[in-house]
């Protein structure tokens, strides 16, 4: 092949590979594995895209990673579940403003034989205390995700220091929710997960929900538009229209309508006062 021809061929291939980046009719949402793994986006997004023509590309990572990516301006919208970190993100000027979108709750799951005897407990602090007491295996995300942050705050409230037991009964997987659940099921360890991921999870083994319903297990999701003043490259207008839609009656209804196995996974709770 002649060099010129080869170059033209190469350029063609590049254009082919890059064709998806041709025109910005999309936004990038930095979000969490729990929302993606539960299948929510697959159900939610087509309605929005049909209506506005805006394609929503979801990058699902841990909340910590999602916030870092958004700080690098690599996303237009942040949809995560770690309120203090979200508020800091806005306070630091990276986000325009934060709004509640929906909630569900965390649950503590574990093997059916329940070595720590916590089944049915409604006080998560006591349950974690019991796990620490008998040194029953516990799988932690250990990845700075929203779930991990929540878990650490629960241990602190229960006055247990699991970090000192890391590597013994306290196992930090450093992985996403799904991988951590797979690990927990594999080693018969307790773990904490959001209810949506748990319901949608396909590899439950003999695991059951042992602890649920404590107010401390509340799991709030918030949405933030990345600030164009910090990140001039963001598609601010499209991002805002997505957020507006999520918080609108229509978007909220779609969230409420999403079920798996007959169970509602997320409960919309946008503040109507903030919605136009």
């Amino acid at each position: 092949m002649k060099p010129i021809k080869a170059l033209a061929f190469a350029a063609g291939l590049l254009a082919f590979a890059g064709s998806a980046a041709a025109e910005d009719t999309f936004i990038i949402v930095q979000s969490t594995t729990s929302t993606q793994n539960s299948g929510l986006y697959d159900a939610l997004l087509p309605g929005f895209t049909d209506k506005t023509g805006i394609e929503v590309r979801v990058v699902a990572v841990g909340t910590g990673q999602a916030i870092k990516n958004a700080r690098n301006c690599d996303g237009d919208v942040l949809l995560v579940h770690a309120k203090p970190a979200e508020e800091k993100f806005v306070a630091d000027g990276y986000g325009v403003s934060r709004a509640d979108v929906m909630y569900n709750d965390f649950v503590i799951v574990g093997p059916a034989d329940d070595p720590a005897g916590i089944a049915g407990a409604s006080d998560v602090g006591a349950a974690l205390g019991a796990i620490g007491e008998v040194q029953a295996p516990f799988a932690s995300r250990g990845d700075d995700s929203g779930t991990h942050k929540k878990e650490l705050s629960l241990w602190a409230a229960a006055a247990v220091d699991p970090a000192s037991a890391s590597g013994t009964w306290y196992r930090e997987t450093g992985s996403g929710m799904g991988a951590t659940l797979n690990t927990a099921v594999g080693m018969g360890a307790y773990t904490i997960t959001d209810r949506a991921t748990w319901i949608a999870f396909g590899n439950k083994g003999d695991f059951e929900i042992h602890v649920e319903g404590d107010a401390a297990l509340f799991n709030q999701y918030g949405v933030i538009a990345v600030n164009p003043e910090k990140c001039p490259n963001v598609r601010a207008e499209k991002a805002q229209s997505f957020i507006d839609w999520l918080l609108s009656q229509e978007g909220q209804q779609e969230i409420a309508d999403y079920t798996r196995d007959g169970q509602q996974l997320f409960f919309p709770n946008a503040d109507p006062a903030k919605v136009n």
Partner: protein
Amino acid sequence: MQDFGAAFAEAFRLIVSGDAALMEIVLLSLRVTFTAVFFACLIGLPLGAALAVGRFPGRGAITVFVNALMGLPPVVVGLVVYMMLSAAGPLGVLQLLYTPTAMVIAQTILVTPIVAALTRQVVADLNAEYDEYLRSLYLPRGRMMATLLWDARHSLLTAALAGLGRAFAEVGAVMIVGGNINHVTRVMTTAIALETSRGELALALGLGIILVVMSVTINAALMSVRHTAERHVHA
């Protein structure tokens, strides 16, 4: 424990039903991987040949470096490419993050050292035979490399296949720079990772089986091409 039979049944069901989502993922996998290997060959073949026959300072050091890069963890490559392409990075203005192009770039970086190192070995072996004759022709270094690369083309297919295998199988780099976005950057390996994290182990393993079958098919096809062509030249 999950049933392996269920995984095979799942793989079979996906293939037979011609699942549209699967087709999309498979095609993107092929597109990204073959494009990356093409560019890796564009860089790695001349680089390997230059390391084999060239005489320039630092050749030994570069050879060691390239050989070492063969073992580069995909996650590290992904991270570096992410930092380059991130809006906050030096190449952020190109807006390539979370596109197939970003995945091609990451895999090209991943595969080039393999192609270059294997090319260096193959060309050096052939040059042991050709060297005196080619020097007696007073070929310029570039033409010498071109002659060696052309005559080693059948062996070099193995280098390209090794690169193809690595690109096809890796998940770490494409996950980070592609983002595993549905319909945009989801490929076989990231889909497998996703289904695993969803706990859909049979589906994940089913996709894995399809990946292996594709890999075997591509290898078999290219090796039979090589075999036919070799019979033609060496008999």
